[in-house]
């Protein structure tokens, strides 16, 4: 049970938690938080895979690292768009949840 596997399991648990939160939480902000949790869980799994690929004197495979950085920036852009839509929703309807959330 090396620490890398440990973080892998932690990543898997985060994915489960993120999915649960995204499905169940009624508020949109809570959904965005759950989405970010889910995203970091997935990227953690990717990081574990990268760490498994340590070779030629570098601690972790650079290709997945680059992909993770790109994915982080995409996730941030997505969060920005979601938050902007949420703020506009609150301005327009005064509610912070979608009618189909219940």
């Amino acid at each position, binding site marked *: 049970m090396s*620490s890398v*596997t*440990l*973080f*892998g*399991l*932690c990543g*898997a648990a985060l*994915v*489960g*938690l993120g*999915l*649960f*939160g995204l499905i*169940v939480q*009624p*508020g949109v*902000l*809570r959904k965005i*938080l759950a989405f*970010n*949790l889910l995203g*970091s869980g997935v990227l953690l799994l990717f990081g*574990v*895979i*990268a*760490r*498994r*690929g340590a*070779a*030629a*004197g*570098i*601690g972790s*495979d*650079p290709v997945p*690292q*680059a*992909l*993770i*950085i*790109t994915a*982080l*920036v*995409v*996730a*941030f*852009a*997505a*969060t*920005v*768009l979601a*938050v902007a839509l949420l*703020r*506009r929703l609150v301005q327009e309807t*005064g*509610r*912070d*949840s979608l009618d189909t*959330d219940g």
Partner: protein
Amino acid sequence: MSLALAADAGLALLILGLAVWTTIARTAFGAVIGFMAYGFLVALVWVRLAAVDVALTEAALGSGLTGVLLLGAAARLPRDAAAARPGWGLRLAAGVVSAAVAAGLAAVVLLLPVPGPTLAPVATATLPTLGLGNPVTGVLIAYRAIDTLLESVVLVLALIGLWSLARDEDWGGRPDALRAANPGAALVLLAQVLPPLGLLVGVHLFWTGAIAPGGAFQGGTVLAAMWVLTLVAGLTRPPRVGGRGVRLLLVAGPALFLAIGVAGFWLGGAFLAYPAADAKPLILAIEAALTLSIAVALGLLLAGPPGARE
């Protein structure tokens, strides 16, 4: 070695605890605070996984800027909007299904081949031709240049999407999401003391990106953070949405990247290829432009859609 393992286990447990807190916290504000702490701890995990570039990005972007964004949103949520929570049956089903997916993933992680397949040797073998030391920057700028190019276009697109949420009559105004009502003296002090240091750190991060962990994204994020700090403190005002100058800045990074990529047809024999001889200056030029564009884009993304024109 078990001490390091114990430390990692502690870190992992702490992260899981914070994640659970973020999911079950009663108020959105509490959840966001929990999430920010969670983000910084995940940055620590990246360091433990020997992915320092990712740790930098996670700390700056994944929890720093995202935290600011979510805090801003949480503060504006209606207090009394108690949304209907799904029935216990659905919550149980969601729990069971999510647990099943997590268990499946855990099984897959345990079954992953231990000497995992890797492209590390291949990536590092051809780094010297590009004059780079940091393999991650090599992948980002050379081997998978198309992803980074599309990435920077995604940022510009997110900004367009953000601006399209403004009201028609507010078009041409200045984004007002960050303007604090009355910034305290302490905040103004911080906004005067920290940015010069932040600027230095940002440029350093961009510059060392070629040979050590760092690069355009990390440097750009730190610069954006400093700009946001001054915006919040009210020392500077966000630019008008319609200004062509700010749009040129936004587009400079991807445009230069694309131009050099097209030049690659003749210089390097293929689109997005670099000439064997002087790849380094071109790469640095692209990184510089990208850093600038990313900093402006992230700052404006946080500044929100254009508000009412005063």
